[in-house]
């Protein structure tokens, strides 16, 4: 995978301003996009690369991963969950399981009245999912707040905490996506 900092010609810093990333991405896309130049497989691929780079850098977890790669750190092979996160994972599981069952029942219901009977549980499910998402966002913010510290540590060759943080952010991202999917499924008519 190409180095996104390089693709967008930006300094490999964890503290990049997302607005700046967008601006740079727009500038380069304007020049490379098949709409504005010649339509060619290269133009298409170059634009795809720019899109991928922007996607990665705008997202804090993606940016951390790209930054670690630049620092020469190995990708965490078998990330372990600390006890705090493991407990959180169990909590999430206990919410996801009944919600999945509810979504299934809803999909099977064919009449308005059968669906309406599930309304109470749906409202409760939405609230618990939103609570989990809130919790996830808080944990993510806490990790992102450590970014300046990671940069300082790196100057002294210490990358452990950053690597660990990347693994945790990836789990949190996955769980957040799980919440979103379920919230969307509950919105289905």
């Amino acid at each position: 995978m190409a180095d996104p900092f390089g693709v967008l010609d930006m300094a490999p810093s964890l503290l990049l301003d997302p607005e700046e990333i967008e601006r740079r991405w727009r500038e380069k896309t304007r020049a490379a996009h098949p709409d504005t130049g010649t339509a060619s497989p290269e133009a298409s691929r170059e634009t795809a690369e720019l899109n991928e780079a922007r996607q990665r850098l705008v997202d804090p977890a993606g940016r951390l991963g790209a930054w670690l790669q630049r620092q020469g750190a190995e990708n965490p092979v078998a990330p372990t969950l600390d006890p705090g996160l493991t407990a959180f994972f169990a909590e999430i599981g206990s919410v996801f399981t009944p919600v999945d069952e509810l979504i299934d029942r809803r999909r099977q219901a064919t009449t308005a009245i059968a669906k309406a009977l599930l309304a109470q549980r749906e409202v409760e499910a939405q609230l618990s999912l939103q609570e989990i998402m809130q919790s996830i966002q808080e944990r993510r913010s806490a990790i992102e707040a450590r970014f300046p510290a990671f940069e300082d540590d790196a100057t002294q060759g210490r990358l452990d905490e950053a690597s660990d943080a990347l693994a945790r952010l990836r789990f949190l991202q996955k769980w957040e996506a799980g919440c979103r999917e379920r919230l969307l499924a509950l919105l289905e008519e």
Partner: protein
Amino acid sequence: MDEELIIGIDLGTTNSLAGVVESGFPIVLADRAGRRMCPSVVHFSTDGSILTGTEAQRVRALHPDRTVASVKRLMGQSPATVPPGHADGLSYETGTGEDGQLAIVIDDGLRPTPEEISAHILRRLRETAETALDQVVSRAVITVPAYFNNAQREATKRAGEAAGFRVERILNEPTAAALAFGLDRIEKARTVAVYDLGGGTFDLSVLQMREGFFEVIATAGDTRLGGDDIDLAFARHLAREMALPEAIVDAHFDAVLTVAREGKERLSDTETWTARLPFLGGASYETTTSREDLESLARPIVEQTRGICRRAFAEAESKGAGTIDHLVLVGGSTRMPLVRRSLEEWFEMEPDTSQHPDEAVALGAAIQAGILCGRVRQVVLLDVTPLSLGIETIGGLMNVIIPRNSSIPAKAGEMFTNAVTNQDAMAIRVLQGEREMAKDNWELGQIAVPFPAGPKGSARVGVQFAIDENGILEVLARDTATGQDHILEIRDAAVDVDDVAVEEMIGASVEHAFDDMNERIWTEAALKSDELLEAVALALEQAGDALPPNEREAIERAADTVRTIRASDSRDATPLKDANAVLDEATQGLAALLVDQAFSRQWE
């Protein structure tokens, strides 16, 4: 940049249009008779000649089985998804062609594919453009619903090529409409939502316009939901109201549909209207109907767009889109007051009706065409892929490689290795869709990942999935040892089905068509009855006391009817279906009560 002229084409379910940018302005082109809309209809006469557009439309009621309309619904489909026979609402028969692909059966020797039909329409539009512009036209931008999958897009592109075009872009319809809306409002950053209810498809896209970029943030839709469904429901209603004998309905349904369509349009402006069918089978029929009647038939169909809108809005919000500044309406059916009222009610937004519902997409396509050949200032259109792309993995699960609503062009890679010593290839199923299980998603086909010979686990082949600016997929495999790249062909799984198996499949279903059909419909109705009766009992327990007594009585009476018919020996599905419908209708108020209760309890 190749500056040779490019035209824009809206290849619609019901009507098609062509447009071009002239002196900096997009315009829709008219044919020799001054018509800007070309009905998407193709007729095959017995003498071998082929009619298209208005001429084909004229003979449709007389020869419905040799006239093909709404073929867009069949693009990119296969006999597996469209069983042979008369698909819902279509006047012509579908079957299979020589190579086992989906085809339309005009007669034994004449089985054009949906692509060939679309090519006839596109050819007609090319002639219109060449006459209007007095020059050869060989490049085009063609629009598709945003929610079209890979197979549907490729079929559209191939149809364009068969009509003699170099297809420069496959453009999403809501994006085209946004372009028409926003091209001269580009200075200010805005968030625009486009609600596109066409004849056969529905899309909602949320876009951000900013600094010369039109960027789609999220899109959602349904490729089998549209104005046609409203027409169908209304036609059936009118047939009942006019007491048309069944034989007449079967033989002349197209005529009824035409009248229904007219009525739908007229009732957007008037409150009552009289449907007339003179000279049908030797008699005349008429009935007076109201906007209210039409709206109660259309409401469930329009309601289906609500969930889709909420999904798109939720996704746009999660990606940081701000409040919607404009909700632009596109598509003939959005003229209905019901649609406008519903949107205001659901989203507390007054819809923007500044765009011509029938022409906005063609104008947008013309603008994009103009951008690509240098006639219009540089604007970058960044669309998204509407469906998640992935592969099937262990356990029958779908592993997403490029998530839905990713900006396109997009790419993502996966590494594969040989599981067995000297394994020379691995077959992978490529899928599009959002469901967790691979089998619930749409299969694009299979790719064969080639491995160089070697011990198990030694080969490293990187497979790159790339979706281009048309939303079309290309798969590349790179052998990391040699650095060699080659394009992996996606073998269309649908067409690959064993011929004998297909024959058997068709044969079996035709033989058992009548037995199966009735049995199936009855079973479906019986299951629904059981669900209804149980749900009604529970619901009455929970909220029955809050109902006005006459409403409760009506529910109980309807439930008794269902119970009685269900318990009888008859396997005739119709009375049971009708009874279910009455009970369903009667419980609407009760259902609303339950939902209200659920929400208000939260605030206690």
